[in-house]
């Protein structure tokens, strides 16, 4: 494969300028190189942003954590600041393989905008903000508004992700993440369910659910979230909402699974939240 030229920017402003000229930002390349090899994308050159200080680092902020777009999954998993975000760690630990987690970044996972993006599921649950820099201004938008569809984002030409700001959830959230497929690693989810559930006096006080690979983007089934409130986390109580969740998803059939299977499994996984009651 002939790689496009890789340019190393002097600083963030330079990176923005180069991106504006059509350069494609590169850090780990775990998704990008696959696309280049397929010819799905033919940028004139690549902009290696992996060493820009503004894109690096994982810091605690007022009420949250800010993660540089070029932070790798392994860096995020081992950063003390993310100890307060177990749902993020649960999800990132399932990405690819050790090699991919060492190279790949959460910023890349967001910009790749795959409905199967394991990193996106916790970001949807936590209401993360995507901080974008561009030639004109910096802006910040919720991840749900940033991701528009499979591989499509709100990034304008010349813009790149600088960081992600993740608000800390209220105390007491039970985290849940489960990814479904035919093997234990190096797996693109056929369906996934992430959840944050707060339980009080044996009943759900608040529930957030996010599903991957069952719609054009990661999906928050808000009606089911609301319907969970007040219910106990028992199999029987959850089973009453199984069909509602199966109808909330909008899956397709592809080589990995049928739409029908994805629908069934989405509903079934809801029952698995009963494991949170004991854990």
């Amino acid at each position, binding site marked *: 494969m002939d790689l496009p030229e890789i340019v190393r920017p002097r600083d963030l402003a330079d990176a923005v300028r180069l991106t504006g000229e059509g350069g494609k930002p590169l850090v780990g390349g775990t998704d990008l190189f696959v696309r280049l090899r397929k010819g799905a994308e033919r940028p004139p050159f690549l902009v290696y942003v992996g060493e820009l200080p503004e894109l690096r680092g994982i810091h605690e902020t007022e009420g949250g954590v800010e993660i540089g777009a070029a932070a790798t999954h392994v860096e995020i998993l081992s950063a003390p600041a993310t100890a307060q975000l177990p749902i993020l760690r649960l999800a990132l630990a399932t990405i690819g393989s050790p090699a991919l987690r060492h190279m790949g970044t959460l910023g890349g996972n967001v910009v790749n905008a795959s409905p199967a993006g394991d990193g996106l599921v916790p970001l949807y649950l936590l209401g993360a903000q995507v901080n974008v820099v561009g030639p004109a201004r910096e802006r910040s938008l919720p991840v749900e508004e940033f991701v528009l569809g499979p591989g499509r984002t709100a990034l304008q030409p010349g813009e790149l992700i600088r960081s992600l700001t993740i608000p800390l959830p209220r105390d007491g959230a039970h985290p849940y993440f489960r990814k*479904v*497929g035919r093997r234990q690693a190096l797996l693109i989810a056929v369906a996934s369910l992430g959840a944050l559930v707060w339980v009080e006096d044996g009943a759900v006080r608040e529930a957030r659910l996010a599903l991957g690979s069952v719609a054009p983007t990661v999906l928050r089934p808000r009606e089911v979230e609301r319907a969970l409130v007040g219910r106990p986390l028992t199999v029987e109580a959850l089973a009453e909402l199984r069909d509602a969740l199966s109808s909330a998803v909008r899956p397709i059939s592809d*080589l*990995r699974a049928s739409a029908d299977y994805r629908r069934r499994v989405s509903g079934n996984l809801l029952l698995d939240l009963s494991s949170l009651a004991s854990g």
Partner: protein
Amino acid sequence: MTRRSGGESDPIVGTPVPRLDAEAKVRGEARYADDLAFAGMVHVKTIRSERPHARIVRLDLSGVESAPGVVGIATVADIPGENIVPIIYRDMPLLAAGVVRYVGEPLALVAAETRDAAREAAARARVAYEDLPAVFDPRDALAHGAPPIARPDAADEGNAFNHMVIRKGDVAQGFAQADVIVEGEYEVGYQEHAYLEPQGVVAVPEDGGMTVYGTLQCPFYVQNAVANVLGLPLARVRIVQTCTGGGFGGKEDVPSHLAALAAVVAWKLRRPAKLVLDRSEDIATTSKRHPGSIRYRTGARRDGTLTAVEVEFYYNAGAYQTLSSAVLWRGLVHAPGPYRIPNVKVDAYSVATNTVPCGAFRGFGSPQVIFAHESQMDELARRLGMDPLELRAKNALRVGDETATGQVLTESVGLGACLAKAREISRWEEVQAEVAAFNRRERFKRRGVGVSTVMYGVGMGAKAPLLDKAGAYLKLEADGSVTLAVGTTEMGQGAETVLVQIAADGLGVPVGMVRVAPVDTSRVPDSGPTVASRTTTVQGMAVLDAARRLRLRIEDAVRAILGCPTFTVAGHRFCHPQDPARSVSFAEVARWMWTRNWDMGVTGWAEGKPVDWDPATGHGNAYFVYSYACHIALVEVDLLTGETRVNRFWAVHDSGRIVNPATARGQVIGGIAQGIGYALMEELPSRDGRILAPSFTSYHIPTARDVPAGIAVAFVEAPYSGGPFGAKGLGEVPLMASHAAVANAVSSATGGRLRAYPAIPERVLDLVAKGA
């Protein structure tokens, strides 16, 4: 049979000698096909058919020839010899002439200064096709009025490349005697070899002939194919195997085709020509395991005694014969399983379709039918209310029994011992109880245990006895080190280590003194292919033959040096029996021989014991000996998702004497991993003869996390008189047994019955729904 005087040094056969090729591979120093470069070398890309069945109306390569970096092109007109890749039949052209029969069939070749230039140039080919009716399913291909795909001179009838039978006893009577009859249809799809190193060759014109270096299993096949397309005598064609990163059968026949393609370019351009496939071209256009449909019927008495088996199965061979007749024959012989069955009827068909030719893959036509026969045994056990291990033990072949082909087993049948050992090491009763307790306790998970027993005919068998031979050349160097040349190949299976152990043990030298030369067709006689789990047995006998001859010569020298008709051995020194102070080392003996102009080279030769076959009845001594195995798998199924995980595995093998327990254990664990993939995840969908996603993104093979940490491997060694130190074959057997144990475990866990591979979560969830 002379054995060296014995006791003088520690035995080497039977010890876990570390893999001799491991260090170079781990260090990254091993040189694979794509690592080779020659001055003036061009890179070749194959221009391939886009259509499954079509007449080529026009092949316009003007854009290809004028593309940047292009050195030249080659078409059918540039083939100096015959436009045929000879394998078993002579039906497959090197380059399609007039008609294409599968998507990916080679049409022409382009050579360029770089690989990228060759690829880009190839994309500029303009081909005008006139589509012909195409069929992709064997049932359609055999239907009345189906378009002819098979060449009449390469097919038994119509598109049935081959129809083979076994007729033993009277199945109607056998089923009439049965108290219980089970019946099922089983479906399996492709399995891709997924060797680490893709296919690759470099053809180098030299000395008026052609030398081809490549990643390959069967150098003598390649030599024959290259000589045929170049129209050269075999002596002008030399094949050198490069370090080979896996084969599993995928490098049995395919390298013949690729080497011949590269050789035609090299011959025309008079420049070295490299042809290396990238992964997607490799998956899309090279051989894989035959998809199969198997209808199976088994009858038994109430006490579990088998009375009859009736099997009809169809393998999708693809557009050309390649190895399908041999694959089918092995499937035929193995279809009844390792059991005593008085009445057997098997009909086996391999069928031409407009798909990529299927070929050899570890197990060679047997895993498909093993899935069926082992599923049947479990269905039968359930119907009879019998323990599945006990049902198998009751019917398992023993010494003195007659196989389904009427062969009386005279020695080395360790099947009963395998079953007993498997029961013991798995703690069979306790495991069943633990599983039952788990299943009572868990709401959304179910565990299941599955058994599988197999037999495996070692060697080429009665379908191709001419190929069951091997040559070896041993050369004692002046310093006492030893060079060994063999005609069979190391492809990652550990052959080099095992053969060196046999040579070292036969000679009485340490392993470190023996070095294996690269396999080169110019060094040793045609040794047949490296397939059929025959290397340790047949090549090992040739090495032992050479070692014994050389040892006799060395002992003559020792007697001459010591001036004494007898001698003793201590460590690696030969001593005068009366005067131990008078002694001579192995190296000193070698030096002595060298200074006196002794002949220090010996050849060894071996061939498999006689076999015979009557194709009309399917009677005969199909193979000279059989290996056996019993596998037990414990799986856990998630009832919410259908995901299946293999938690534990127990594998017991009789492959005769185990030459190297460490490499043998590696073979078994690798075969278990491959079987887990076959049973649970590997799937290569195609539409209209086109492989839809030829990449590892969607073709899932097991990762380290999908293979259980708890694998217990044991060997029961029933020695075989025709193998070196009593060894039989092992290579293919672990894969053959493992998948069926996993499949039976899935059925047991779900309460349903798995009748199609792979048991992906979606299919398992359906089983759960049906089993509930």
